[in-house]
């Protein structure tokens, strides 16, 4: 198998692009795809100051590396979730990545700064760990992006993530969720601009990018992720992808090109008007935001 670009030995074949790449040209392909997504969806101004939500996994670290290569002024934010060894190891991958490249890393630790961690929050609220985790991360990332005056908050959602969520939303015709499923959400009411520059890359491609550029990342799964329905959708979509390469990209990108704008009205209607949280000042539809409520529940029960 030969590299489509240089005819040297190739190490990966990307059927949906009808291409094979060596290490160097795979890295270039990934950077080009991110640049194209940024351009096509008007995601970021050249040289923008951006905050990247980093978890220590392949997607967020690949994204950080690529945006740094493309000349953006980047900082990463890592939230210590307190999920045992999984969190300790994830945090070390992030710290090593940032320090080797001289990049700015911000860290927030849930337990020492906010008095709880995800396993205790899940136990005390009797809700799934991912719901407490998701709302905590959203709150802290949004907050840090606004407080730090960044032009955008950037996340590592890839094509497989977005196609799986789209599949789930279509299966249930969740019109409000469909209306919101966009790679760029503009800044509004104290919430930062949110951008997903990896929507043109699959998980196999971001993982391969990490391997060929020497990025060590957390391969192990979060122990609380068990039974996530999106994994089943991803597997289904990959069955279709093998039978017909390009299916995932077509499903997601055609939705963005042809359908999502039909739902602009739904998006506008669905916007709850946001006031501010009496306790922390964050944008919130209720007097006390979900994050502050979670904090007070865990503080009360922890005593």
């Amino acid at each position, binding site marked *: 198998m030969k590299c489509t670009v240089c005819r040297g030995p190739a190490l990966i074949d990307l059927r949906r692009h009808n291409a094979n790449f060596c290490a160097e040209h795979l890295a270039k392909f990934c950077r080009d795809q991110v640049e194209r997504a940024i351009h096509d969806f008007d995601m970021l101004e050249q040289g923008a100051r951006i905050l990247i*939500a980093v978890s220590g996994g392949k997607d967020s670290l690949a994204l950080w590396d690529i945006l740094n290569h493309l000349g953006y002024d980047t900082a990463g934010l890592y939230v210590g979730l307190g999920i045992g060894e999984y969190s300790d190891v994830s945090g070390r991958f992030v710290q090593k990545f940032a320090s080797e490249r001289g990049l700015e890393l911000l860290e927030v630790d849930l337990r020492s700064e906010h008095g709880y961690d995800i396993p205790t929050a899940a136990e005390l609220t009797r809700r799934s760990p991912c719901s407490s985790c998701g709302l905590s991360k959203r709150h802290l990332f949004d907050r840090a992006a606004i407080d730090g005056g960044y032009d955008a908050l950037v996340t590592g959602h890839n094509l497989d993530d977005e196609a799986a969520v789209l599949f789930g939303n279509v299966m249930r015709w969740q019109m409000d969720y469909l209306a919101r499923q966009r790679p760029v959400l503009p800044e509004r009411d104290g919430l930062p601009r949110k951008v997903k520059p990896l929507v043109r890359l699959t998980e196999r491609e971001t993982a391969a990018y990490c391997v060929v550029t020497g990025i060590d990342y957390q*391969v192990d799964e979060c122990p609380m992720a068990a039974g996530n329905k999106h994994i089943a959708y991803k597997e289904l979509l990959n069955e279709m992808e093998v039978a017909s390469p390009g299916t995932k990209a077509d499903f997601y990108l055609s939705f963005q090109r042809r359908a999502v704008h039909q739902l602009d009205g739904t998006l506008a209607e669905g916007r709850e008007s946001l006031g501010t949280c009496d306790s922390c000042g964050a944008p919130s539809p209720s007097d006390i935001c979900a994050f502050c409520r979670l904090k007070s529940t865990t503080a009360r029960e922890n005593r």
Partner: protein
Amino acid sequence: MAPIGHHGAVLLKLRNPNRTQTVPGPVKVSVLLDRLELNRESVLLIRNGTIVAGDTTLQDDDEVEIRPVISGGAL
């Protein structure tokens, strides 16, 4: 995990959870994935720190990581 007793076979290192398995070589990567019922979109094979292409033939005594690339958590 000491790779004891895999001489004369290809040692596969699987993840989530970590475990090992041996298969007789020589075997082509794409054939191995079919035999293990793994989707080519869902894994990368890694040998000595680099990705192994689908048309590569693995030999006895090779040590290969089969790394899943599907992740499940919401960010």
